[in-house]
């Protein structure tokens, strides 16, 4: 069996140029123990269909699900000094980096991308947890700064998906310095008047939660994610008490006022699009906009359309979505004031 799985199958696959079939066709739900078909889970963005348990998802897969039609462009990450401290623990840090690059096909733990979300241009910064626990070092710090700079250049909203154990110890004090450095980037975005949405996924802890991941205009958490500053084990050892049920989970943070909402991964796209349209004072979704555009053409410029009160109009366009689906010619519910 071993000989077949370890040797024969990979050889066969490489000979046939075929994508290797997942090693486990079945996935066991960590919550319920239920066996689920691998392909179903993958198709459902790594959320177990029945239990709703959120598994980890690779950065690029997340982006594919997030952007319209799965289309996005990656932004090249800045070059940084490699292993400036020449760090070694049980392994050399430089070896660790090489292994992780081979394993993940990533340069480091951050990917930046641009693309369209329901037609709006959005810059995203995504942690990939599989690369050294999504940890924050110089490469990740510079990449995050680049992500924010790109959003500022393109004058578009920023969405950050956090998944990280925190600062990367192998870069010592230089990783700690990424807390203020990334915070500078957040401030620049805020000063440019652009929205910043953070999606906190499992896990978001340590130096990452103590900087850019907790400075969003809006905090969205995926269900069941561990979010906090100190690790549960450290807290238990310090206070010598048992931790409360659900401690440091998304729902617990929601109860304690630390996040705005808990949203399943499969609903993130729609939620974020809705929020960003409001924050950037955009019209209602694309389907409606098409209808309205037609109305606009018929009735002339926006200025000539009799709009009672621009504020009412804004409320209507924002809140009542389905009603306006039909292009109502006579009383055009007019687009909100241009922005």
């Amino acid at each position: 069996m071993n000989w077949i799985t370890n040797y024969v199958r990979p050889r066969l696959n490489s000979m046939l140029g075929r994508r290797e079939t997942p090693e486990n066709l079945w996935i066991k739900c960590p919550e319920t123990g239920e066996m689920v078909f691998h392909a179903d889970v993958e198709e459902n963005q790594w959320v177990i269909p029945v239990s709703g348990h959120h598994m980890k998802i690779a950065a690029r897969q997340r982006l594919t699900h997030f952007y319209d039609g799965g289309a996005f462009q990656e932004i090249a990450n800045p070059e940084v000094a490699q292993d400036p401290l020449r760090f070694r623990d049980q392994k050399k840090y430089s070896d660790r980096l090489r292994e992780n690059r081979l394993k993940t096909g990533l340069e480091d733990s951050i990917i930046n991308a641009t693309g369209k979300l329901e037609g709006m241009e959005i810059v995203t910064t995504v942690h990939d947890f599989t690369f050294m626990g999504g940890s924050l070092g110089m490469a990740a710090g510079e990449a995050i700064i680049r992500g924010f700079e790109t959003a500022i250049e393109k004058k578009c909203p920023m969405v950050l998906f956090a998944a990280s154990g925190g600062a990367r110890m192998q870069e010592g004090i230089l990783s700690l310095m990424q807390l203020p450095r990334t915070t500078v980037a957040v401030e620049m975005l805020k000063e440019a008047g652009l929205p910043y949405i953070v999606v906190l996924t499992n896990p978001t802890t340590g130096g990452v939660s103590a900087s850019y991941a907790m400075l969003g205009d809006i905090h969205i958490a995926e269900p069941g994610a561990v979010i906090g500053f100190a690790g549960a084990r450290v807290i238990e050892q310090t206070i010598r008490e048992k931790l409360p049920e659900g401690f440091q989970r998304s729902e617990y943070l929601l109860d304690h006022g630390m996040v705005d909402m808990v949203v399943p991964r499969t609903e993130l796209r729609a939620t974020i699009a809705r929020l960003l349209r409001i924050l950037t004072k955009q019209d209602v979704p694309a389907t409606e906009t098409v209808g309205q555009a037609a109305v606009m053409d018929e009735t002339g410029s926006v200025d000539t359309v009799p709009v009672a009160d621009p504020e009412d109009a804004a409320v209507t366009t924002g809140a009542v979505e389905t009603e306006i689906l039909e292009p109502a010619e006579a009383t055009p519910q007019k687009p909100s004031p241009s922005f």
Partner: protein
Amino acid sequence: MYSYLEFEKPIADLEGQILELKKLAESGEGAVDVAEEIARLEKRSHEALVEAYRKLTPWQKAMVARHPDRPHCIDYVDALFTEFTPLAGDRNFAEDHAVMAGFARYHGQPVAVIGQEKGNDTKSRLKHNFGMARPEGYRKAVRIMELADRFGLPVITLVDTAGAYPGIGAEERGQAEAIARSTEKCLNLRVPLVSVIIGEGGSGGAIAIATANTVLMLEHAIYSVISPEAGASILWRDAARAKDVATAMKITAQDLLELKIIDAIISEPLGGAHRDVSAVMAETDRHLTKAMAALDGRDGDTLRRQRREKFLAIGRNL
């Protein structure tokens, strides 16, 4: 009598002998011989101290930085400032005694002071939670920084913490967010901000008040992303490797100056700050005066821009 650190054992032995001989001399027996012997031992103990402190390992520095007799925030506030008026509370939940904050005068100039206080005996250590702040401490710091910004007062921070407190309540009330907001506030100030790492600069708990225009650091202080012990237990699954991790992580003032993370080192008296507190205060005063003078007269936008550029530049030329 000082508390002696493990590596100071030879010095402890010699100083113990000196003390005994001095007692003997006081009792009046064989005074002549004793004086000579004392002089000889004092010379030896001085030499031993010079030898031990000539090249402290990073782990030994960590021990010195945490020395129970080391001057703390409260000592610096007493020695360097006048009219210190502490302010309390974050206006939301509680007063956190791990963070001292208030207004004062520095050589007559009105300033705001924020620092972490560890306490120096069981009772005060408990009161100050060993210098480990809860979210309220950071939110109080933000509040004081806001006031300083509004009234144009320079801010001086004294950093000495093993880290932010890891507790249930602290997490529930948003420890991570509180730290992030405090760092953010540091970066947005339009007044001078000078930080002095006086003992331990413990991770996020330190950076929250140390994101400054000028960062000074005591000669034997440490500044680190994680404590050497915790680092060892994560990286090696063995806390006993703390010595190695202390070396590998670059936590000393000398390393940090080389990496351009701090701006200057404040030298300590032989044997550490606790052996001559007035000397370390004078030296801190000298550096602080210089740092404040260098920032004096700059407008708010410049101060803020320079602070941000300074941090963005870190690590870019390694």
